[in-house]
């Protein structure tokens, strides 16, 4: 499985036609197909290309909504 640094992950921010990836607990998820991640933004407050482990702890939903999406890699420096 592909390994991402935080710098590499940041390239997949959903802007300018790039794929939309986010990381959670060391796994990188491809959320490009999610209606709720259009243009790399989620509910105004969150942007793609980042490790959202801390943010998800405060979100009004658990990881189960993220885990529906394909895992495309591992975040190295998480």
């Amino acid at each position, binding site marked *: 499985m592909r390994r991402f640094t935080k710098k590499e992950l940041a390239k997949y921010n959903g802007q300018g036609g790039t794929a939309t990836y986010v990381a959670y607990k060391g796994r990188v998820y491809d959320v490009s197909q999610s209606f*709720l991640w259009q243009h790399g933004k989620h509910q*105004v407050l969150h942007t793609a290309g980042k490790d959202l482990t801390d943010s998800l702890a405060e*979100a009004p939903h658990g990881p189960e909504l993220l885990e529906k999406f394909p895992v495309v890699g591992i975040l190295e420096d998480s």
Partner: protein
Amino acid sequence: MAKVTREMVEKAGVNLDQLVELLVKNAAAELTTYYYYTILRVNLIGLEGEGIKEIAETARIEDRNHFEALVPRIYELGGKLPEDMKAFHDSSACPPASLPQDPRDIQAMLRVLVEAERCAVRGYTHLCNLTAGKDHRTYDLSQAILNEEIEHESWFSEFLGEGPSGHFLRRGETSPFVSKFLR
């Protein structure tokens, strides 16, 4: 726009631009859900479908009421609705509650309905969390809507056999919590 209202909310530490954007996204979710629920409701046919139709209709009308109740608050806070209806649709805080492939599959219909309500419950919980103790009017409105969305979720959840809702369908007027914002 209500100038002092904006000042008070900002002074309390709320990011106004983010809050307004979230309110617009939730208003979009309400109006689009009202639209998609119209399609779901007309397709709730047959013995099983007819049994759900009345509650789906109540949820549909209440979602429209939520849209109506949110709009004044958006403008009070200096926001506005997008002029482009398609852009408004695509900015929704919840995915489209689209008709399932087989509308006679009542379980699939109920899953669409319950997922739409669950998205709304998450959204208004988030809005309540952001505004609690800071923006009293938006909090009051979000909490009123949240109360109704929770009931909608519990109705559809009960039909899915997930457990008793503890509620009965509305008697009389719709929107018992939000109606005070519609007068």
